[in-house]
């Protein structure tokens, strides 16, 4: 790697430094990783930026700063149990000490530890760029990522258990340390269900529960080293069935 590193002290400084060819540097587990997809001529180090490491639980929301590491989130009070479970999908202590919540979201990997769970929970992200700051649903962030490449994720807001949300997540991988080939999450709040789905090699999906069958048939699922298309489709359907049954407290195969 032949590049420069900038060390801003504030969010405003960080977003002002973001130019073409730059990338934010959070925990490093993605950026520095073998065969990393992150290419940049300069990195903006976020570790010294004020305002990115807070964890605030208030009422029905929990706001977690983007530079909070998995380990810190796991140790913090008020973190919903469904999110702790997702944080533990990252099996390595060293990685959990380095990886950040914001970095994992920004990477938007199709084997992401957190994104399916956050999507199913209806999480929101706070963003900052040179035009200002905004909050948007994580699902929308995912859809607009191409136009948000220069945006800095400053925090994620997820519903607390007090909000009544229930989220189930399941990760399928050969070993704990292997990449997940399928991560499935379903959330329920009042009578509304949400699905977050990450399929290795295919992408991240948020199929609507009401027309699940149609949208699922249209998804591009491939045979690969992790298993056949048929296997992954079967597993997804079965797992969602089970989750729906548990969340709705009803039998049947409505999903």
């Amino acid at each position, binding site marked *: 790697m032949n590049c420069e590193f900038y060390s801003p002290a504030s969010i405003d400084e960080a977003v002002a430094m973001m130019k073409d060819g730059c990338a934010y540097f959070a925990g*490093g587990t993605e950026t*520095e990783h073998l065969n990393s997809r992150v290419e940049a001529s300069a990195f903006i180090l976020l570790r010294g930026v004020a305002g990115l490491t807070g964890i605030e639980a208030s009422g029905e929301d929990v706001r977690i700063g983007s530079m909070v590491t998995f380990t810190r989130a796991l140790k913090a009070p008020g973190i919903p149990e469904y999110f702790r479970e997702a944080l533990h999908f990252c099996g390595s202590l060293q990685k959990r000490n380095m990886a950040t919540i914001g970095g994992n979201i920004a990477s938007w990997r199709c084997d992401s530890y957190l994104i399916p769970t956050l999507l199913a929970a209806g999480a929101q992200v706070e963003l900052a760029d040179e035009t200002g700051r905004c909050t948007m649903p994580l699902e929308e962030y995912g859809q607009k990522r191409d136009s948000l490449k220069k945006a800095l994720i400053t925090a994620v807001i997820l519903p607390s258990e007090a909000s009544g949300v229930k989220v189930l997540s399941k990760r399928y991988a050969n*070993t704990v340390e292997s990449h997940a080939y399928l991560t499935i999450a379903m959330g329920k709040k009042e009578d509304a269900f949400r699905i977050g789905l990450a399929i290795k090699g295919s992408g991240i999906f948020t199929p609507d529960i009401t027309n699940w069958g149609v949208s699922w048939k249209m998804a591009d699922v491939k045979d690969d080293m992790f298993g056949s298309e048929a296997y992954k489709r079967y597993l997804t359907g079965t797992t969602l069935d089970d989750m729906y049954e548990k969340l709705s407290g009803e039998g049947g195969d409505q999903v």
Partner: protein
Amino acid sequence: MKLNLTINHIPRCYETDPAKRLQEILADHGYNGVRDSDNNEGFCGSDTVLLNGEPVYADLIPAAAAQGAKIITPDGLRDLGILAAKGVDLTEDFFGEGCSPEEGRAVVDRALLLNGKEAGDCLTLVQQAMVDAGVVGSAYNAPAAALLLTWLIMNDPHPDREAVKEAMSGIFIRDAGYEHYYLAVKLAVERMDSGAYSTQPAPSFRPHLNIIGKPAEKVDGPALVRGDRVFVEDYVPADSCILKILRSPHAHAYIKSIDTTEAEKVPGVVHIITAANCPDIYYMQAGQGNPEPSPHDRRLFNWKVRHVGDRVAGIVAETEEAAMEAMSLIKVEYEPLKAVFTVEEAMAEDAPRVHNGIVEYRAGAPADLDEYNKDAGDWRDGKVVYQFPLGADIHHNVAAGNRGGIGDVEKAFGEADAVVERTYQTSQIQHTPLEPHVCFARMEGGRLAVYASTQVPYHVRRIVGWVTGLPENKIHVIKTRVGGGYGSKQDILVEDVTSYAAFITGRPVYYRNTREEEFIANSTRHPMRVRVKMSGMKDGTITGIFMEVRANTGPYGNHCLTVPMNSCSKTLPLFKCANMAYDLKVLYTNSPPAGAYQGYGTPKGTFGIMMCMAELAEKLGCDYKDMVLKNHVETGYMLDILKGLGEGREGNVVPVGSCGLRDAVLQGCDMIKWGVKEVSSDPDVKIGKGFAMIMQGSGLPGLDHSEAIAKMETDGTVILNSGCADIGTGLDTICAKIVSEIMCMPMEHVTVLSGDTDAAAFDTGSYASSGTFFSGNAAVVASKGLKEEVLKEAALQLEEDKEDLELRYPGEVYSKKTGKVLTYADLSHTACSGSGRGMMVYHGNFVTTASSVPYGAHFAQVAVNTRTGEIKVQKFYALQDAGTPINPELALCQMYGAALKSIGHTLYEGMILDKDGNCINANMTDYGVPMIYEQPDDFKSVLIDVDDPDGPFGAKSISEIACNGAAPAIGIAIHDAVGVWLEDWPMTPEKILRKLGKIV
């Protein structure tokens, strides 16, 4: 940038590129406990450091992101322990500024407690506990593990099992497994709390012996766990040249032309080796006895590439950057050829020939060889030289073959009450040693010195001699500590080209495989197809067994006969059966190379034969356990089947010797409650049990050869120059214990120097489970000889009869007649004085036709989710007859390590090739290996006590056999759980679901 760090309590400032990785910076500045196993994959954990009090991967941190950090490195623990003992407050170093718990300093001081030895040899609390627990094997990651566990007990002085699991979750241990890491923490906590251990690290055996069979500190344990400079990479001077290999993008192609002109102009490039300028010498890379049962089918560089990753050019340059730039400028024109990747493709009519050159034989050439060679192809195919006939036919891609048997299997099948015939398939497995293949070579005073991480120093010397043309007296091979081998370092995969590069350039040359190269250009477990046909009677008697083995050796024939032979020679002799036959073929293909792997072909053969037996039992309506007990061999049973199962020669027909097989089966059945059906609270989850009989060998009788030279130094201590190659298993410790036991002296007065071809005499090396049996017996012979020399010299000095003298602890000669005592120190001093008769030395040599076969049984209990196909190994019990376990704590860890490795092979490990022969999972994360979370919740290793008449103090081999049981035990357990037979490994959830009809 100027990088300011506090490393191990000392402020440091380095001028560095801000993007340079912290691991490289630390390693460059002498913190050699911060290693790299995965090329910044964030997987293996060899690069673990504490950064501001938290364990992180230093390989994933650029310098710029580490500015101002407080860092603790694994190799710094001992020095920090010394500082703490001197009263230095290290709280902030371990917890970071402002993060210290209330009792911070006391916690740090307790966790860094030293063991009371001098600074040069002392260990901290956890380091000592790890050595005592037996987990310091090949130990490439042991220092990092010690750091993690030290951090753990500082943060949680009484950690439970879950906390240990969390602490070890980001570190890969391939040799010892994880079970005794829990023990190490327990021992450390006990000593921290009460000043002593209350738990015994392992059981003791042979009460009449002083040190054999008792836990004792592994002789190289302290250096390994501290992170001392013990591996090849630690011997490489900064000014060494780097060797990089340009590798083939094609699975099968002729090289039409290769142009290195532009590459050679790159400043810093010293030399480029290609097929055009390398020696025209055919050899093979298998480290086996000479003449080898493997064809000499390659040169250093060939005009035909035979797999993706095959060598095309070797670039020697002063820097890695220059080598990589030169590599990009080499112009190669290929003529691609059709490739074959499976044994079926290789056996097909009109299959392309992987080798199509001239065939030669050094002995036993067939009469029609000239006619055969008329059909040879392009000159670029080179030639294939057999040392003696191996049943080969390269025109049909057959590298080796054999068939034979006893009795009449067809008749047995015809008369049986039931016959089962199934074909089993196994995947291509990578050894994944934490230390990749590595070599450093340089000319020293007109001789070639080769620093090698090898299991076979003398075979390295011989093959390097062939390649360079140097006689053996001009080559000095120094086996360093070996950071994991598992068979892959039985092959001379990098020493050949590195040594040649140093010889031809006169420059010191360093070579190290990347992790990807470990997968694509190294050595792997042969993919194999094993067809088993077995017949039996309603009373459970097995009447006939036939095994057909088709092994995929890849492009070269390393161990091509031996590995598949083991599929039969280490399985059929488990059975009292009068009718047995086998048919083996080993096929050349264009898949990545295969070679030796712990267990050789036995795990595959055991998988097939035990699965088939379990299915036959079901078909006959017999209980599987009853069938096992009815048909297994016992001491004295004559093994006629071995006659045809030698390695290219007639095998030794011997009776079964000591045998703990029945005890292992019965004890294991009790432990797992065989016959009791377990029921899960989840209705989708079904639980099943299975087990498998296993056996291996203890070296190769009639082929292996070991020597050791025992000499008494002038102060009465002893140095044993052993030809053995300790690859982390504790072989040096075994030899030291043997000397200590026979010479009646403390172990610390014995030093074993091994693996150095200048210092010791010949030994075939550590493979085929030979170490304990052969090298151990050589140590016995040398020690007994030295004992005689000591008694003779003492008789002269004391002017008494030798028969009246005996050796006595702690190293003295005692006269039973006069009561006189002569210490070894006085004895040796006089012997080496101006009027003395010379140093007492004995050169021991051990060869044998005797065979000490280890036996055992491995048991599994699995839970299978019938909706998702997920398989969880809930229990795994490994019971083995290892004879006298000379190092019991190390023996148990080897069993845990090998069994866990095999659980990985059974359930998820396997290299996957695309249609062009590219390995698409050539990294640790995608390949997948068992880490601590994959270990069964209930995991036990049990040593069955058997005293063998031929092993040193009754010992047999331990670790290879432990690779053999997992696949059939788990496969049989899966059937018990859900009623399906899985005939190929890895046994994935998808395969379960397909067998259950859930997906089609």
